Protein backbone atom coordinates (compact mmCIF):
# COMPACT_ATOMS: atom_id res chain seq x y z
CA UNK A 1 0.00 0.00 0.00
CA UNK A 2 2.32 2.77 1.26
CA UNK A 3 6.06 2.35 0.75
CA UNK A 4 8.80 4.61 2.01
CA UNK A 5 12.16 3.93 0.47
CA UNK A 6 15.45 5.48 1.66
CA UNK A 7 13.75 8.65 2.86
CA UNK A 8 15.83 11.61 3.97
CA UNK A 9 13.94 14.48 5.55
CA UNK A 10 14.04 16.98 8.39
CA UNK A 11 13.49 20.53 9.50
CA UNK A 12 15.41 23.05 7.39
CA UNK A 13 19.12 22.31 7.66
CA UNK A 14 18.55 19.71 10.39
CA UNK A 15 18.23 16.25 8.89
CA UNK A 16 16.18 13.85 11.02
CA UNK A 17 15.50 10.88 8.75
CA UNK A 18 18.55 9.16 7.26
CA UNK A 19 17.48 6.68 4.61
CA UNK A 20 14.34 5.43 6.35
CA UNK A 21 12.40 2.63 4.64
CA UNK A 22 9.14 1.00 5.70
CA UNK A 23 5.93 -0.46 4.29
CA UNK A 24 2.33 -0.14 5.48
CA UNK A 25 0.20 -2.98 4.16
CA UNK A 26 -3.54 -2.75 3.37
CA UNK A 27 -6.00 -3.68 6.10
CA UNK A 28 -3.25 -3.79 8.73
CA UNK A 29 -2.05 -1.54 11.52
CA UNK A 30 1.60 -0.52 11.43
CA UNK A 31 3.01 0.86 14.68
CA UNK A 32 6.09 3.07 14.54
CA UNK A 33 7.93 2.98 17.85
CA UNK A 34 11.01 4.78 19.07
CA UNK A 35 12.40 7.09 21.71
CA UNK A 36 11.81 10.84 21.72
CA UNK A 37 13.61 12.50 18.81
CA UNK A 38 14.01 9.23 16.89
CA UNK A 39 12.05 10.64 13.93
CA UNK A 40 8.59 9.09 14.35
CA UNK A 41 6.54 12.29 13.95
CA UNK A 42 8.96 13.49 11.25
CA UNK A 43 8.16 10.31 9.30
CA UNK A 44 4.44 11.03 9.46
CA UNK A 45 4.88 14.70 8.52
CA UNK A 46 7.03 13.65 5.58
CA UNK A 47 4.37 11.20 4.39
CA UNK A 48 1.76 13.97 4.62
CA UNK A 49 3.91 16.41 2.62
CA UNK A 50 4.19 18.74 5.61
CA UNK A 51 7.98 18.32 5.46
CA UNK A 52 9.85 18.09 2.16
CA UNK A 53 11.49 14.83 1.12
CA UNK A 54 15.15 15.58 0.41
CA UNK A 55 15.88 12.11 -0.98
CA UNK A 56 14.13 8.78 -1.36
CA UNK A 57 10.76 7.78 -2.68
CA UNK A 58 7.26 7.45 -1.21
CA UNK A 59 4.71 5.44 -3.19
CA UNK A 60 1.05 4.62 -2.65
CA UNK A 61 -0.01 1.48 -4.53
CA UNK A 62 3.24 1.70 -6.52
CA UNK A 63 2.53 5.26 -7.66
CA UNK A 64 4.64 8.17 -6.42
CA UNK A 65 2.90 10.13 -3.69
CA UNK A 66 2.35 13.79 -4.66
CA UNK A 67 4.29 16.45 -2.77
CA UNK A 68 1.42 18.72 -1.69
CA UNK A 69 -0.62 17.91 1.43
CA UNK A 70 -4.02 18.51 -0.17
CA UNK A 71 -3.18 16.18 -3.08
CA UNK A 72 -2.10 13.53 -0.57
CA UNK A 73 -5.33 13.97 1.43
CA UNK A 74 -7.32 13.58 -1.76
CA UNK A 75 -5.68 10.20 -2.35
CA UNK A 76 -7.40 9.02 0.84
CA UNK A 77 -4.72 9.52 3.50
CA UNK A 78 -6.03 11.20 6.65
CA UNK A 79 -3.75 12.47 9.38
CA UNK A 80 -4.48 13.01 13.08
CA UNK A 81 -1.62 15.18 14.34
CA UNK A 82 -0.13 15.02 17.82
CA UNK A 83 -1.37 18.57 18.44
CA UNK A 84 -4.91 17.56 17.35
CA UNK A 85 -5.31 21.01 15.73
CA UNK A 86 -8.94 21.58 16.64
CA UNK A 87 -10.13 24.91 15.24
CA UNK A 88 -10.89 26.84 18.44
CA UNK A 89 -13.47 29.32 17.17
CA UNK A 90 -15.50 26.64 15.40
CA UNK A 91 -18.00 24.40 17.17
CA UNK A 92 -17.65 20.60 17.22
CA UNK A 93 -20.23 20.39 14.43
CA UNK A 94 -18.39 22.98 12.32
CA UNK A 95 -15.06 21.24 12.90
CA UNK A 96 -16.61 18.02 11.61
CA UNK A 97 -18.37 19.66 8.67
CA UNK A 98 -15.07 21.17 7.59
CA UNK A 99 -13.67 17.71 6.87
CA UNK A 100 -16.85 16.12 5.56
CA UNK A 101 -16.11 15.93 1.89
CA UNK A 102 -15.82 13.03 -0.48
CA UNK A 103 -12.73 12.68 -2.60
CA UNK A 104 -12.54 10.39 -5.62
CA UNK A 105 -10.42 7.89 -3.64
CA UNK A 106 -12.75 8.00 -0.63
CA UNK A 107 -13.41 4.78 1.20
CA UNK A 108 -15.56 3.63 4.09
CA UNK A 109 -18.90 5.49 3.90
CA UNK A 110 -18.27 7.59 6.99
CA UNK A 111 -21.03 10.13 7.63
CA UNK A 112 -21.66 12.58 10.44
CA UNK A 113 -24.22 10.18 11.96
CA UNK A 114 -21.75 7.28 11.84
CA UNK A 115 -18.88 9.16 13.51
CA UNK A 116 -21.28 10.36 16.21
CA UNK A 117 -22.33 6.76 16.72
CA UNK A 118 -18.65 5.87 17.16
CA UNK A 119 -18.08 8.80 19.52
CA UNK A 120 -21.44 9.54 21.24
CA UNK A 121 -19.72 12.04 23.53
CA UNK A 122 -19.21 14.34 20.53
CA UNK A 123 -22.92 14.19 19.78
CA UNK A 124 -23.61 15.67 23.23
CA UNK A 125 -21.18 18.52 22.59
CA UNK A 126 -21.95 19.41 18.98
CA UNK A 127 -22.54 23.10 19.69
CA UNK A 128 -19.59 23.52 22.05
CA UNK A 129 -16.57 25.46 20.85
CA UNK A 130 -13.30 23.68 20.17
CA UNK A 131 -11.68 25.27 23.21
CA UNK A 132 -14.42 24.00 25.53
CA UNK A 133 -13.47 20.35 24.99
CA UNK A 134 -11.35 18.20 27.27
CA UNK A 135 -8.18 16.59 25.89
CA UNK A 136 -9.98 13.30 25.34
CA UNK A 137 -12.88 14.97 23.55
CA UNK A 138 -10.43 16.87 21.36
CA UNK A 139 -8.74 13.60 20.42
CA UNK A 140 -12.11 12.02 19.61
CA UNK A 141 -12.95 15.05 17.48
CA UNK A 142 -9.60 14.89 15.68
CA UNK A 143 -10.14 11.19 14.86
CA UNK A 144 -13.78 11.76 13.88
CA UNK A 145 -12.74 14.63 11.61
CA UNK A 146 -10.17 12.42 9.91
CA UNK A 147 -12.73 9.62 9.45
CA UNK A 148 -15.13 12.01 7.75
CA UNK A 149 -12.56 12.31 4.97
CA UNK A 150 -13.35 8.62 4.37
CA UNK A 151 -9.68 7.61 4.30
CA UNK A 152 -8.07 4.48 2.92
CA UNK A 153 -5.21 5.00 5.34
CA UNK A 154 -5.50 6.67 8.73
CA UNK A 155 -2.30 8.08 10.23
CA UNK A 156 -2.28 8.82 13.96
CA UNK A 157 0.48 10.64 15.81
CA UNK A 158 0.56 9.90 19.57
CA UNK A 159 -3.22 9.56 20.01
CA UNK A 160 -2.95 8.85 23.75
CA UNK A 161 -0.57 11.63 24.74
CA UNK A 162 -1.73 13.52 27.83
CA UNK A 163 -4.94 11.53 28.19
CA UNK A 164 -6.37 9.93 31.33
CA UNK A 165 -6.15 6.11 31.46
CA UNK A 166 -9.92 5.70 31.04
CA UNK A 167 -9.85 7.83 27.87
CA UNK A 168 -6.79 5.92 26.59
CA UNK A 169 -8.83 2.72 26.94
CA UNK A 170 -11.76 4.29 25.11
CA UNK A 171 -9.54 5.49 22.24
CA UNK A 172 -7.94 2.01 22.14
CA UNK A 173 -11.36 0.34 21.84
CA UNK A 174 -12.46 2.71 19.09
CA UNK A 175 -9.27 2.17 17.09
CA UNK A 176 -9.72 -1.57 17.53
CA UNK A 177 -13.22 -1.21 16.04
CA UNK A 178 -11.76 0.67 13.09
CA UNK A 179 -9.13 -2.04 12.65
CA UNK A 180 -11.83 -4.74 12.70
CA UNK A 181 -13.68 -2.78 10.02
CA UNK A 182 -10.58 -3.18 7.83
CA UNK A 183 -9.19 0.36 7.96
CA UNK A 184 -5.44 0.55 7.32
CA UNK A 185 -3.58 2.57 9.93
CA UNK A 186 -0.14 3.88 10.75
CA UNK A 187 0.24 4.58 14.44
CA UNK A 188 3.04 6.49 16.14
CA UNK A 189 2.86 5.88 19.87
CA UNK A 190 5.03 6.11 22.98
CA UNK A 191 2.73 3.82 24.95
CA UNK A 192 4.26 0.41 24.16
CA UNK A 193 1.34 -1.64 25.45
CA UNK A 194 -1.23 0.45 23.60
CA UNK A 195 0.69 0.27 20.32
CA UNK A 196 1.53 -3.44 20.37
CA UNK A 197 -1.98 -4.49 21.35
CA UNK A 198 -3.37 -2.68 18.30
CA UNK A 199 -0.66 -3.26 15.73
CA UNK A 200 -0.12 -6.12 13.32
CA UNK A 201 3.29 -4.90 12.17
CA UNK A 202 5.87 -2.90 14.10
CA UNK A 203 8.91 -0.89 13.09
CA UNK A 204 11.33 0.58 15.60
CA UNK A 205 13.06 3.78 14.60
CA UNK A 206 16.34 4.98 16.04
CA UNK A 207 18.43 7.92 14.88
CA UNK A 208 16.29 8.47 11.79
CA UNK A 209 16.35 4.94 10.37
CA UNK A 210 14.52 1.67 10.95
CA UNK A 211 16.52 -0.46 13.40
CA UNK A 212 14.05 -3.30 13.77
CA UNK A 213 10.91 -4.52 12.03
CA UNK A 214 8.63 -7.45 12.67
CA UNK A 215 5.24 -8.36 14.08
CA UNK A 216 3.61 -7.22 17.32
CA UNK A 217 4.12 -10.60 19.10
CA UNK A 218 7.78 -10.53 18.01
CA UNK A 219 8.47 -7.08 19.50
CA UNK A 220 6.75 -8.12 22.72
CA UNK A 221 9.19 -11.03 22.92
CA UNK A 222 12.27 -9.04 21.83
CA UNK A 223 13.29 -7.64 25.21
CA UNK A 224 16.77 -6.67 24.00
CA UNK A 225 15.28 -4.41 21.30
CA UNK A 226 12.81 -2.94 23.78
CA UNK A 227 15.64 -2.21 26.19
CA UNK A 228 18.09 -0.86 23.59
CA UNK A 229 15.74 1.28 21.47
CA UNK A 230 12.57 1.90 23.43
CA UNK A 231 13.75 2.18 27.01
CA UNK A 232 11.04 -0.25 28.11
Amino acid at each position, binding site marked *: MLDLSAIESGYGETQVLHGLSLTARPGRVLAILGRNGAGKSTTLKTIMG*LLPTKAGRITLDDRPLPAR*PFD*IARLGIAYV*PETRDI*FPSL*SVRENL*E*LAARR*FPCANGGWTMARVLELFPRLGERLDNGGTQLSGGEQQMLAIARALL*MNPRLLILDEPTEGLAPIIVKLIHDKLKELKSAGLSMILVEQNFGFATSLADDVVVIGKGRVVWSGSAPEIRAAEDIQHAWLGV
Partner: protein
Amino acid sequence: MFRHTPLRYGTLALLAALALFKAVTADYFGLEILTEILILAILVIALDMVAGFGGMVSLCHGALMGVGAFAYALLTVKAGLTPPLALAAAIGITGGAAWIIGAICARSHGIYFIMATLAFGQMAYSYVFQTPTFGGDDGLGGIARLDLTAFGIDLNDSRTFALFCLAALAASYCAIVGILRSGLGRSLTGIMHNEQRMRALGLTVWRVKADVFGLSGMIAGLAGALAAQHMMFISPGLLSWKVSGEALVVVILGGLGTLVGPIVGAAAFVLLKHEVSALTSYWHLVVGVILIAVVMSRANGIFGWIETRWTARKATRRTGPADAPLKEARTDA
Protein backbone atom coordinates in the same frame (compact mmCIF):
# COMPACT_ATOMS: atom_id res chain seq x y z
CA MET B 1 -16.47 31.86 12.89
CA PHE B 2 -18.84 34.82 13.07
CA ARG B 3 -21.61 34.62 15.62
CA HIS B 4 -24.24 37.17 16.57
CA THR B 5 -24.61 37.97 20.26
CA PRO B 6 -27.34 40.01 21.95
CA LEU B 7 -24.84 42.87 22.16
CA ARG B 8 -24.12 42.67 18.44
CA TYR B 9 -27.83 42.55 17.58
CA GLY B 10 -28.47 45.45 19.92
CA THR B 11 -25.65 47.54 18.46
CA LEU B 12 -26.84 46.85 14.92
CA ALA B 13 -30.42 47.82 15.85
CA LEU B 14 -29.16 50.99 17.52
CA LEU B 15 -26.99 51.93 14.55
CA ALA B 16 -29.82 51.26 12.09
CA ALA B 17 -32.24 53.34 14.19
CA LEU B 18 -29.75 56.21 14.41
CA ALA B 19 -29.07 56.08 10.67
CA LEU B 20 -32.80 56.05 9.90
CA PHE B 21 -33.40 58.93 12.30
CA LYS B 22 -30.62 60.99 10.72
CA ALA B 23 -31.80 60.08 7.21
CA VAL B 24 -35.25 61.45 8.04
CA THR B 25 -34.30 64.52 10.09
CA ALA B 26 -30.85 65.67 8.88
CA ASP B 27 -30.26 68.67 6.63
CA TYR B 28 -28.31 68.42 3.35
CA PHE B 29 -24.89 68.54 5.05
CA GLY B 30 -25.94 65.93 7.60
CA LEU B 31 -27.19 63.65 4.82
CA GLU B 32 -23.86 63.96 2.99
CA ILE B 33 -22.01 62.89 6.13
CA LEU B 34 -24.45 60.02 6.70
CA THR B 35 -23.99 58.81 3.11
CA GLU B 36 -20.21 59.03 3.48
CA ILE B 37 -20.41 56.92 6.65
CA LEU B 38 -22.64 54.32 5.00
CA ILE B 39 -20.42 53.93 1.91
CA LEU B 40 -17.28 53.73 4.05
CA ALA B 41 -19.04 51.14 6.24
CA ILE B 42 -19.70 48.94 3.18
CA LEU B 43 -16.00 49.13 2.25
CA VAL B 44 -14.74 48.37 5.75
CA ILE B 45 -17.00 45.37 6.38
CA ALA B 46 -15.72 43.98 3.06
CA LEU B 47 -12.18 44.50 4.36
CA ASP B 48 -13.05 43.00 7.77
CA MET B 49 -14.31 39.85 6.05
CA VAL B 50 -10.85 39.10 4.62
CA ALA B 51 -8.66 40.68 7.33
CA GLY B 52 -10.63 39.77 10.46
CA PHE B 53 -11.84 36.32 9.44
CA GLY B 54 -9.15 35.23 6.99
CA GLY B 55 -6.01 36.98 8.24
CA MET B 56 -5.62 38.66 4.82
CA VAL B 57 -4.76 42.24 5.75
CA SER B 58 -5.28 44.01 2.46
CA LEU B 59 -3.89 47.38 1.45
CA CYS B 60 -5.68 47.37 -1.90
CA HIS B 61 -9.31 47.62 -0.83
CA GLY B 62 -9.28 51.35 -1.54
CA ALA B 63 -8.08 50.55 -5.05
CA LEU B 64 -10.80 47.90 -5.41
CA MET B 65 -13.37 50.50 -4.41
CA GLY B 66 -11.80 52.78 -7.04
CA VAL B 67 -12.05 50.03 -9.67
CA GLY B 68 -15.77 49.75 -8.90
CA ALA B 69 -16.20 53.51 -9.09
CA PHE B 70 -14.30 53.90 -12.37
CA ALA B 71 -15.96 50.84 -13.92
CA TYR B 72 -19.39 52.29 -13.11
CA ALA B 73 -18.41 55.77 -14.32
CA LEU B 74 -16.83 54.58 -17.58
CA LEU B 75 -19.66 52.21 -18.41
CA THR B 76 -22.32 54.88 -17.87
CA VAL B 77 -20.51 58.02 -19.09
CA LYS B 78 -18.38 56.64 -21.94
CA ALA B 79 -19.98 53.31 -22.94
CA GLY B 80 -23.54 54.55 -22.49
CA LEU B 81 -24.68 51.53 -20.46
CA THR B 82 -27.78 51.93 -18.34
CA PRO B 83 -26.93 52.51 -14.64
CA PRO B 84 -28.37 49.16 -13.39
CA LEU B 85 -26.31 47.22 -15.94
CA ALA B 86 -23.25 49.36 -15.22
CA LEU B 87 -23.70 48.75 -11.48
CA ALA B 88 -23.88 44.97 -11.97
CA ALA B 89 -20.90 45.06 -14.33
CA ALA B 90 -18.86 47.23 -11.95
CA ILE B 91 -19.47 44.77 -9.10
CA GLY B 92 -18.54 41.87 -11.38
CA ILE B 93 -15.39 43.55 -12.74
CA THR B 94 -14.18 44.46 -9.24
CA GLY B 95 -14.91 40.94 -8.00
CA GLY B 96 -12.92 39.48 -10.90
CA ALA B 97 -9.98 41.83 -10.28
CA ALA B 98 -10.04 41.00 -6.57
CA TRP B 99 -10.17 37.25 -7.29
CA ILE B 100 -7.03 37.54 -9.44
CA ILE B 101 -5.24 39.60 -6.75
CA GLY B 102 -6.36 37.11 -4.09
CA ALA B 103 -5.19 34.12 -6.14
CA ILE B 104 -1.76 35.67 -6.74
CA CYS B 105 -1.27 36.91 -3.16
CA ALA B 106 -2.76 33.79 -1.50
CA ARG B 107 0.61 32.09 -1.07
CA SER B 108 2.11 35.01 0.83
CA HIS B 109 1.47 35.82 4.47
CA GLY B 110 1.77 38.67 6.96
CA ILE B 111 3.83 41.63 5.86
CA TYR B 112 4.43 40.07 2.42
CA PHE B 113 0.69 39.80 1.79
CA ILE B 114 0.23 43.43 2.85
CA MET B 115 3.04 44.57 0.55
CA ALA B 116 1.77 42.49 -2.39
CA THR B 117 -1.74 43.95 -2.09
CA LEU B 118 -0.25 47.44 -1.72
CA ALA B 119 1.69 46.89 -4.95
CA PHE B 120 -1.49 45.87 -6.78
CA GLY B 121 -3.28 48.92 -5.40
CA GLN B 122 -0.52 51.28 -6.51
CA MET B 123 -0.40 49.67 -9.95
CA ALA B 124 -4.13 50.30 -10.36
CA TYR B 125 -3.72 53.88 -9.11
CA SER B 126 -0.82 54.63 -11.50
CA TYR B 127 -2.63 53.09 -14.46
CA VAL B 128 -5.81 55.08 -13.89
CA PHE B 129 -3.82 58.25 -13.15
CA GLN B 130 -1.85 58.02 -16.42
CA THR B 131 -4.62 56.85 -18.73
CA PRO B 132 -6.55 59.59 -20.56
CA THR B 133 -9.61 57.29 -20.96
CA PHE B 134 -10.06 57.44 -17.19
CA GLY B 135 -9.77 61.22 -17.23
CA GLY B 136 -6.22 61.18 -15.88
CA ASP B 137 -5.58 63.61 -13.05
CA ASP B 138 -8.86 65.43 -13.84
CA GLY B 139 -11.02 62.39 -13.12
CA LEU B 140 -14.46 61.78 -14.55
CA GLY B 141 -17.63 63.77 -14.03
CA GLY B 142 -21.29 63.67 -15.06
CA ILE B 143 -21.94 60.30 -13.43
CA ALA B 144 -25.62 59.40 -13.27
CA ARG B 145 -27.29 57.75 -10.29
CA LEU B 146 -29.48 54.69 -10.64
CA ASP B 147 -32.89 55.53 -12.05
CA LEU B 148 -35.53 53.97 -9.81
CA THR B 149 -38.33 56.41 -10.69
CA ALA B 150 -40.33 53.48 -12.06
CA PHE B 151 -40.62 52.36 -8.42
CA GLY B 152 -41.37 55.89 -7.24
CA ILE B 153 -37.84 56.32 -5.86
CA ASP B 154 -35.79 59.34 -6.85
CA LEU B 155 -32.16 58.73 -5.98
CA ASN B 156 -31.21 62.27 -7.02
CA ASP B 157 -32.78 63.31 -3.73
CA SER B 158 -30.07 63.23 -1.03
CA ARG B 159 -32.40 61.78 1.60
CA THR B 160 -33.54 58.96 -0.67
CA PHE B 161 -29.95 58.25 -1.74
CA ALA B 162 -28.85 58.02 1.91
CA LEU B 163 -31.66 55.51 2.58
CA PHE B 164 -30.62 53.58 -0.53
CA CYS B 165 -27.04 53.41 0.79
CA LEU B 166 -28.37 52.20 4.15
CA ALA B 167 -30.25 49.42 2.34
CA ALA B 168 -27.06 48.57 0.40
CA LEU B 169 -25.11 48.38 3.68
CA ALA B 170 -27.74 46.10 5.22
CA ALA B 171 -27.66 43.85 2.14
CA SER B 172 -23.84 43.77 2.15
CA TYR B 173 -23.79 42.92 5.88
CA CYS B 174 -26.28 40.06 5.39
CA ALA B 175 -24.27 38.76 2.41
CA ILE B 176 -21.04 38.75 4.43
CA VAL B 177 -22.70 37.01 7.39
CA GLY B 178 -24.08 34.43 4.94
CA ILE B 179 -20.62 33.88 3.42
CA LEU B 180 -18.94 33.58 6.83
CA ARG B 181 -21.51 31.03 8.00
CA SER B 182 -21.25 28.95 4.84
CA GLY B 183 -18.79 26.14 4.18
CA LEU B 184 -16.55 28.69 2.48
CA GLY B 185 -16.55 30.84 5.65
CA ARG B 186 -15.77 27.82 7.84
CA SER B 187 -12.87 26.94 5.58
CA LEU B 188 -11.64 30.54 5.77
CA THR B 189 -11.73 30.42 9.58
CA GLY B 190 -9.86 27.12 9.52
CA ILE B 191 -7.21 28.60 7.22
CA MET B 192 -6.73 31.58 9.54
CA HIS B 193 -6.20 29.23 12.50
CA ASN B 194 -4.02 26.63 10.80
CA GLU B 195 -3.37 26.75 7.08
CA GLN B 196 -1.24 23.61 7.06
CA ARG B 197 -3.94 21.60 8.83
CA MET B 198 -6.49 22.70 6.23
CA ARG B 199 -4.16 21.51 3.48
CA ALA B 200 -3.85 18.16 5.26
CA LEU B 201 -7.66 18.01 5.29
CA GLY B 202 -7.54 18.16 1.50
CA LEU B 203 -8.48 21.80 1.05
CA THR B 204 -7.15 23.93 -1.80
CA VAL B 205 -6.19 26.84 0.40
CA TRP B 206 -5.34 29.38 -2.32
CA ARG B 207 -8.71 28.80 -3.97
CA VAL B 208 -10.65 29.50 -0.77
CA LYS B 209 -8.61 32.66 -0.19
CA ALA B 210 -9.11 33.82 -3.78
CA ASP B 211 -12.87 33.13 -3.67
CA VAL B 212 -13.34 35.07 -0.43
CA PHE B 213 -11.11 37.89 -1.66
CA GLY B 214 -13.18 38.01 -4.87
CA LEU B 215 -16.45 38.19 -2.92
CA SER B 216 -14.99 40.89 -0.70
CA GLY B 217 -13.94 42.74 -3.86
CA MET B 218 -17.50 42.60 -5.17
CA ILE B 219 -18.72 44.35 -2.02
CA ALA B 220 -15.87 46.90 -2.27
CA GLY B 221 -16.94 47.40 -5.90
CA LEU B 222 -20.50 48.13 -4.74
CA ALA B 223 -19.09 50.71 -2.33
CA GLY B 224 -17.13 52.24 -5.23
CA ALA B 225 -20.14 52.40 -7.54
CA LEU B 226 -22.15 54.07 -4.75
CA ALA B 227 -19.27 56.52 -4.07
CA ALA B 228 -19.23 57.45 -7.78
CA GLN B 229 -23.00 58.03 -7.71
CA HIS B 230 -22.77 59.95 -4.46
CA MET B 231 -20.18 62.45 -5.67
CA MET B 232 -21.22 62.19 -9.36
CA PHE B 233 -17.52 62.75 -9.95
CA ILE B 234 -14.48 60.58 -9.32
CA SER B 235 -10.74 61.17 -9.34
CA PRO B 236 -7.79 58.72 -9.27
CA GLY B 237 -7.30 59.67 -5.60
CA LEU B 238 -10.04 57.14 -4.82
CA LEU B 239 -7.58 54.35 -5.72
CA SER B 240 -4.75 55.78 -3.64
CA TRP B 241 -3.15 53.70 -0.89
CA LYS B 242 -4.33 56.37 1.57
CA VAL B 243 -7.93 55.21 1.07
CA SER B 244 -6.86 51.60 1.74
CA GLY B 245 -4.87 52.75 4.78
CA GLU B 246 -7.84 54.72 6.13
CA ALA B 247 -10.10 51.71 5.64
CA LEU B 248 -7.67 49.58 7.65
CA VAL B 249 -7.52 52.26 10.37
CA VAL B 250 -11.33 52.26 10.53
CA VAL B 251 -11.44 48.44 10.86
CA ILE B 252 -8.86 48.49 13.68
CA LEU B 253 -10.53 51.49 15.34
CA GLY B 254 -13.92 49.73 15.29
CA GLY B 255 -12.81 46.17 16.08
CA LEU B 256 -11.16 43.70 13.71
CA GLY B 257 -13.10 40.48 13.13
CA THR B 258 -16.33 41.70 14.70
CA LEU B 259 -18.10 42.95 11.54
CA VAL B 260 -20.23 45.25 13.73
CA GLY B 261 -17.15 47.08 15.02
CA PRO B 262 -16.00 48.41 11.63
CA ILE B 263 -19.45 50.01 11.13
CA VAL B 264 -19.00 51.72 14.51
CA GLY B 265 -15.47 52.64 13.40
CA ALA B 266 -16.74 54.13 10.12
CA ALA B 267 -19.21 56.34 11.98
CA ALA B 268 -16.58 57.41 14.55
CA PHE B 269 -13.96 58.09 11.87
CA VAL B 270 -16.16 60.21 9.58
CA LEU B 271 -17.69 62.14 12.48
CA LEU B 272 -14.25 62.76 13.99
CA LYS B 273 -12.93 63.88 10.62
CA HIS B 274 -15.71 66.41 10.12
CA GLU B 275 -15.94 67.64 13.70
CA VAL B 276 -12.21 67.95 14.31
CA SER B 277 -11.41 69.35 10.86
CA ALA B 278 -13.88 72.18 11.64
CA LEU B 279 -11.58 73.12 14.53
CA THR B 280 -8.14 72.33 13.11
CA SER B 281 -6.64 71.16 9.87
CA TYR B 282 -4.54 68.67 11.89
CA TRP B 283 -7.46 66.27 12.26
CA HIS B 284 -5.27 63.32 11.23
CA LEU B 285 -3.19 64.02 14.34
CA VAL B 286 -6.24 63.61 16.58
CA VAL B 287 -7.34 60.42 14.80
CA GLY B 288 -3.75 59.15 15.12
CA VAL B 289 -3.69 59.76 18.88
CA ILE B 290 -7.04 57.97 19.29
CA LEU B 291 -5.85 55.04 17.17
CA ILE B 292 -2.66 54.75 19.26
CA ALA B 293 -4.76 54.85 22.44
CA VAL B 294 -7.05 52.11 21.10
CA VAL B 295 -4.10 49.92 20.05
CA MET B 296 -2.21 50.51 23.33
CA SER B 297 -5.30 49.68 25.39
CA ARG B 298 -5.04 46.14 23.96
CA ALA B 299 -8.78 46.16 23.38
CA ASN B 300 -9.94 45.02 19.95
CA GLY B 301 -11.05 48.51 18.88
CA ILE B 302 -13.98 50.50 20.23
CA PHE B 303 -16.48 47.67 19.80
CA GLY B 304 -14.01 45.08 21.08
CA TRP B 305 -13.61 47.15 24.24
CA ILE B 306 -17.39 47.33 24.66
CA GLU B 307 -17.70 43.56 24.11
CA THR B 308 -15.00 42.83 26.69
CA ARG B 309 -16.67 45.07 29.28
CA TRP B 310 -20.06 43.54 28.49
CA THR B 311 -18.76 39.98 28.88
CA ALA B 312 -16.98 40.85 32.14
CA ARG B 313 -20.13 42.47 33.51
CA LYS B 314 -22.22 39.46 32.57
CA ALA B 315 -19.71 37.15 34.27
CA THR B 316 -19.76 39.33 37.41
CA ARG B 317 -23.56 39.22 37.48
CA ARG B 318 -23.51 35.43 37.20
CA THR B 319 -20.87 34.78 39.85
CA GLY B 320 -21.12 37.95 41.95
CA PRO B 321 -18.23 40.32 42.59
CA ALA B 322 -14.94 38.65 43.48
CA ASP B 323 -14.78 40.33 46.89
CA ALA B 324 -18.45 39.70 47.83
CA PRO B 325 -17.72 36.94 50.39
CA LEU B 326 -15.15 39.21 52.07
CA LYS B 327 -17.67 42.06 52.38
CA GLU B 328 -20.27 39.69 53.78
CA ALA B 329 -17.74 38.38 56.30
CA ARG B 330 -16.93 41.94 57.38
CA THR B 331 -20.66 42.74 57.79
CA ASP B 332 -21.16 39.61 59.88
CA ALA B 333 -18.31 40.59 62.12
